[in-house]
């Protein structure tokens, strides 16, 4: 469904050209959940923002490659045409739900606006739709939440609103850029499970941008590992997690403290346990 071919993105800064993304190719199939994993500066967010044409600044330039959505190259589209893609065919769930919501309007008015943008509905029908979509994302007491402002909701509830809005036009693909990093662990799990449920029930494909292999193992079918703008490894999530081929992937997985250690690791006294640190070859 989504196909990224040899994508390169440069930033023209005062200090010279920075190659943020270099020759990245990957795909997201119908109903697939792909993890896009990397540390800060790896180019994972730039890649996902390029898909939506949201790089925006004059300084950022796609220097080569194409992004095909069902065969159409998104990079060749005008902003006008892209507006029809955004939200309608590709939904976005960003990391910071707080900045995705407007503090001076109620949740309801923002949701109704988005719903009416995509569907020809009267205000009252759009309101009904908003209630239904909040129910779908597991929000308690939707009518009351629609009257509320964003500051009256918890972090997890805000993220649910953003997900509900991203789903308003029933997009076939959802870009989720670190949607749970700002949340407590128990809330993170709830939100990820919600995304899994949406994937299962609505068949929505998800491109999950994350730095956390725990998230990958919990929900992804396939994974692309990026480092310094390049893809270092990709494949099915099971295979990459079980037998990572690239030393960088291996170190990303082994440098994280584990809750469940294997028996050999457990024999080392705690004071002597050290984490693996990646050494540049």
């Amino acid at each position: 469904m989504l196909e990224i071919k040899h994508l390169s993105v440069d930033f023209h800064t005062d200090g010279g050209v920075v190659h943020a993304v270099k020759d990245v190719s990957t795909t997201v199939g119908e109903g697939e959940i792909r993890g896009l994993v990397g540390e800060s500066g790896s180019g994972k967010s730039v890649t996902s923002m390029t898909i939506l044409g949201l790089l925006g600044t004059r300084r950022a330039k796609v220097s080569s490659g194409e992004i095909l959505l069902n065969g159409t190259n998104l990079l060749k589209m005008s902003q006008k045409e892209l507006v029809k893609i955004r939200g309608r065919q590709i939904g976005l769930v960003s990391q910071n739900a707080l900045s995705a919501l407007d503090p001076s309007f109620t949740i309801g008015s923002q949701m109704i606006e988005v719903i009416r943008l995509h569907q020809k509905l009267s205000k009252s029908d759009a309101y009904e739709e908003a209630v239904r979509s909040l129910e779908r994302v597991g929000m308690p007491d939707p009518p009351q939440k629609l009257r509320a402002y964003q500051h009256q909701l918890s972090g997890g509830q805000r993220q649910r609103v953003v997900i509900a809005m991203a789903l308003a036009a029933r997009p076939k693909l959802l870009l989720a850029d670190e949607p749970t990093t700002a949340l407590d662990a128990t809330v993170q799990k709830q939100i990820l499970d919600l995304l899994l449920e949406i994937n299962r029930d609505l068949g929505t494909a998800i491109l999950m941008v994350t730095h956390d292999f725990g998230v990958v193992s919990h929900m992804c079918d396939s994974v692309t590992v990026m480092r310094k703008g390049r893809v270092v490894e990709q494949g099915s999530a099971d295979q990459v997690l079980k037998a990572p081929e690239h030393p960088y992937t291996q170190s990303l997985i082994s440098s994280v403290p584990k809750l469940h250690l294997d028996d050999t690791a457990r024999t080392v006294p705690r004071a002597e346990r050290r984490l693996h640190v990646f050494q540049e070859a």
Partner: protein
Amino acid sequence: MPSDKFLEVIDLRKVFSVSGGFRNKSADVVAVDDISFSIRKGETWGLIGESGSGKTTTGRMILGLEHVTSGHIVVDGHETTNLTGERMRKMRQKVQVVFQDSGSAFNPRLPVGPQVGAPLRRFKLCDAKEATRRVLELLEKVGLDESHYDRYIHEFSGGQRQRLGIARALTTDPEFLVLDEPTAALDVSVQAQVLNLLKDIQEERDLTMLLITHHLALVEHMCASAGVLYNGRFAEQGPVDQLLHNPQSEVTKKLLDAVLEPKAA
């Protein structure tokens, strides 16, 4: 009191009164509700909890950054609850802190070297020349070098800032470190380096540490014992091997259930 308890917290309580709300009504919020625990010399103790559980407030009370409503804090046999003036400053030589965002704890308009050495001058522990020598030594200890002495905080990466935070915490040769989410803002590869550094330093100096975090795997890696805070009270506390692998309370079970981790290969 048994001498192997380096830190003892007894019935510690913190009440914030919130005033100026609707019709200027005031309300009391109990952030920490009569908690007790103790840490043995040279041990790392984990204080676990989600946001709002009271874990950071507890840490701040131990550091003397927050007034204690009631209860006692005993460090190395000396009561340190609500100290003031010179006695507080003396205590702070022994008890230091590393925050999540060490960068914001540095003055952006001054080079970092003198700031790392500030406690030496403040406590008049040595002369200026000796202070510089000691700071350079500390920078090296935390994996930085001489060339970093005259730089400003914005020139450093997140991991380096955290190293600087650790260096400054070590300046006064403390015996006790409070670590408040010390790696939450770091990439995993950098987190690994910082955690290894903390363990090395602990081993070398026989440091006692309190690790405040919501991250259970971090506790498993660093701590021998820990407690789970929930709404200002301990849901459960004990040895980590017990706590995280045979939990008794619903709160701990729920937290453990939310841990996402690649299956062990």
